[in-house]
C-alpha cells in the first residue's frame, strides 16, 4: 500500500494536517497542497494514484481541478471531492465533470480512508 500516492488538496491547514496524518498512518504517501496552483504544479510533475480535493480552494477550485485533470490532462485518476454539506449544486457539477466520489464536511477521517481505499481498489 505504501507505493500508493495521494494528492490531498485542502486549504484548511489544520484539517489538511489531520487528514494527512491519518492517511499517512494508513501507509499512503501523501502530498498535501493548500491551493489550486500547487495542485497544478504537482500534477505537472506526476499524476498521483488518487486525488482528494476540497471544492472551495483559492485560485483553482475543485470543480476546475476535475475539469483540468479529465479534459486537459486526459487522466482517469480517481478524484474524491470534499465539500460542505448542502453544497449540492457543486457536488452535482463535480460528478458531471467526472468526480469519482464525494465526502461531506465535517469529515470523518476514518470514512475518508475507507473511500480512498475503495477507489484505489477500483482503479
Amino acid at each position: 500500500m505504501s507505493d500508493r500516492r495521494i494528492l490531498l488538496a485542502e486549504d484548511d491547514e489544520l484539517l489538511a494536517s489531520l487528514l494527512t496524518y491519518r492517511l499517512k498512518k494508513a501507509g499512503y504517501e501523501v502530498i498535501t497542497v493548500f491551493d489550486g496552483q500547487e495542485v497544478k504544479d504537482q500534477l505537472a510533475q506526476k499524476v498521483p494514484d488518487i486525488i482528494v480535493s476540497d471544492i472551495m480552494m483559492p485560485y483553482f477550485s475543485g470543480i476546475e481541478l476535475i475539469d483540468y485533470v479529465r479534459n486537459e490532462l486526459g487522466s482517469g485518476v480517481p478524484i474524491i471531492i470534499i465539500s460542505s454539506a448542502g453544497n449540492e449544486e457543486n457536488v452535482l457539477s463535480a460528478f458531471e465533470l467526472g468526480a469519482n466520489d464525494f465526502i461531506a464536511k465535517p469529515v470523518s477521517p476514518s470514512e475518508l480512508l475507507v473511500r480512498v481505499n475503495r477507489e484505489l481498489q477500483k482503479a
Partner: protein
Amino acid sequence: MVAEKKKELAPMVSQFLFFEQTAPLEEKKDYLHTKIEIRELIKSDFDRLVLAEILLDLQKDVSGEARENLYELYQGLGLHHDAFEKLKSRRWEVISQGILELTQMRVEESYMFIRRFINHRRAVVRKQAQIATVTLKNEGISYFFDTCKYRISEWQQLKLLDVLRNFDDFNPPRFKIWLTSKNKDVVLFALRLIRYYNQNDALQAIIQLIKHRNNEIKTEAVQCLKEFGVVEARDTIKASFRRSNAGIKIAMLDALAEFGDRDDLEFLKKIERSDDNFTVRSKALSAINTIYPENIMPTDDIREPSSADLAFADVTAVEDIAIEEPRLHAADESIEVNENHATAVDDIKEVDETMPLMADNTDVVEVQAEAEIEADQQENIEENDSHSEEIETSEDPVHDKATIEMKESVQIPELEEEDELIFDLCIKEEFEDILDEAKQEEDPQYLPLDFLPVVEGELEKETMNTENTDITTAKNEPVDEEGKFKQDLSAIINRLEMKDESKKAEIGSDIPDFIPLVVETHEEIEPSEDLTNLREMEVSVEPPETDNNLGDEVSDESVPAYVDIRNTEVIAEEVSWQQLLAENDIEIQINLDQEIEIEETKYQEFEVFSIFREMFRDFDSESKLILLDEILVVGEYKELCFLATLAHDKDRRVRKKGQKIRQELANKLGVSLDGNNMSGENEAQPAIPAELISEPETNEQETKLPLEYCFLEGPLPISKEDKGLESLNK
C-alpha cells in the same frame, strides 16, 4: 506567531487523536513522548490558548470518532478549566465565549454552571446559555421551558429546534405541559414543537388556544389543529373567526377546508359574502370548493355562446350524440343533487345543440328531435324533483337549505329561446341548400361541401360566396366589402389618371390601404439609414404627357359585377394592382384604345419596387458591392431606378459603383439614361421615365411624391435640359 504555533502543535494533536492502543511499540513510544511534550507546553498560557483554538477549529471540520477524541483530548488536557474561569468573568463577552467553548466541546459538567445564565440580562449571554442548556443535556429543554422568562425570538427558536433535531437519542418531553406557561413565547414554541413532534395528545388545550389573545399563538394553534385534522375544533374556529385578523382568518379557512364538511358551507358562504378582505373572501370560496367541489360555478365574465358558436358546436355534437345519449337516459341516482342539476341542464343543452343537425335532412327527424328534447327535459325535471324529495326528507337541515339555494341558482333554459335558435339554424341550412343549388347551376362541376366539417373560416367564405347570387342574406357585411373593393379599385384607377395639380397634392393621403403595402411594411421595419435616405427622396410630379383619361373610361361601371371578394386578401398581400387585375380576370368592358394599353404597359414597367432594395436595406457595404455586380447581370429597368437611389448611400464605394453599374445596365438594356432609346430598334419600348432613372430634383415649388409612389404617376416630361440628368450622365 499563532499560525506557526498551530503548525507545530497540529501534528501532535493528530497523533493524539488517532492513537490506538493496539499500535506498535514504536508508535506507543512516540505517543508517550508527545504526551510529555504537550504537558510541558500547556504550562504556558499562550500554548494553552493556541491548543484550545486548534481543537475548537478542528471540531467543526471533523466528525465521527475523531471528533469524540477531540472532546476527550480537550478535557484530558484540562483546557475546559480555562473556559470555566471565563464563566466567572464580569464581562459578558468573556462569559459568552466561555459558554460557547464549553458547549462546542460538549463539556457536560458545565451544564449546571451554564444554565443559570438562561435569564441573563444580556441577550447574547442569555441566548448562548439557552442553546448550551439544550445542547449539553436532554433535559435541558425542559429546564429552559420551565425557567425562561424572556422573549424567545424566532431565530432563537429555530436554533433551538436545530439543536434538538441533531440529537441522536433525544426523547422529547410532552410539550403540552408548557401550553399553560405565562411566557407567551414558551407557549408558542411549545406549540411548534408539539406540531414538529406530532404530539397530538393535547388537542383540547390547543383548541382553547384558538381563543388566545396573541395572534401568533392563535395562528400556530390553528395550523397545529389543521395538521392534526381536529374536526372538533371547527366550532371554536368559527366562533373565533370574527375577532381574528386577516392572516388568522386565512389560516382558519385553510383549516376548515382541510377538515370541514358541508355543515360549514353556510358559514363559509357567509364569509364569502360579507368579509371585508378580498383574500379572505377568496379563501372562503376556495374552502367551499375544497369541501364541496364545483358547488360554486364561475359566473363572472362568462360569455353566452352565440348562434354561430352553437352551429359550430353542432358538428361535434352530432358526432358525439351516440355516446352522449345513453348517459342522458341513464342518470345515476347516487350522484349528488347539485351534480344532477348541472347534468340535467347540460344534457338539455347538448340535445338542443344537436337538434338542427338532426333536422338537416327531413322534417321527420326534426319532429323526433323536438320530441326527444321535450322528453329529456321532462325526464331531467322529474329526476330533479325526485332528488328534491330526497333532500326534503333528509335530516340534515343545512343540506336542505344549501340544496334549495342551489336549485334556485340553476336555471333551465326557456323553450322559447331554444325554438328561436333552432329556427335560425334551420333557416341557415335552407340558405346553404339554395346557395348550393345556385352554384351548381352556375358551375356544373361545383361540388357542395356541406358534408365536410364546418369551420369558422369556411363559414365566412360561404357567406361571402352568397354575393354571387340574388339571395338576400341576414348579414350585409359582404355587400359592404364589395362596395369598399369597388371604391378602392376606382380610386386606384383615378389615381393613375390624375392630371390636374389639385389631385396630385392629395396622393399621399388618399391612397387605398392595400396599394402601398410595401411602404407600410417599411414603416414597421426599423428604418435603416438607407431607408431613411430613400424616404427623404422625392420626385417632382409633372402632368402626364398623354391625354389618356383612364379615370373617365375605367369607371366603376367598367368593373364587372362579379368580383371574387375572397381575392381581396391576396390583394392585401401584393403590391401591384396589375397582378390583381390579372389574377381576378377582371374583364373590363370598355374599349381601351391603343394609347391606354401602352400606358398600362408603362405602369407595369415603371413599378419601381426592386428586390435588391430589400437586400440593400440590411446588407453591409461589402455585400452591397457584390450585389451590384449581380444587378448588372440580372438587372432590369426597375433596377435602373433603384440604382439611382444609391447615389445617397452612406458608403462612397457603393455610391460610385452604383452609378457605374447603373450606366452599364442602361447600356446593356439599350436605354439611354436621358430618356431615349439608344438602339432605336424597338420603338414600342418606352424610354425610362426620368423621375425613375434620374436623381431626385429639389424643385420645392413642385408637388413632391415619395419615390415609392411614383409608379402611380404617368410618365413625366423629361428633357435633356434637366440638370439632374445631365449631372448624372456626366
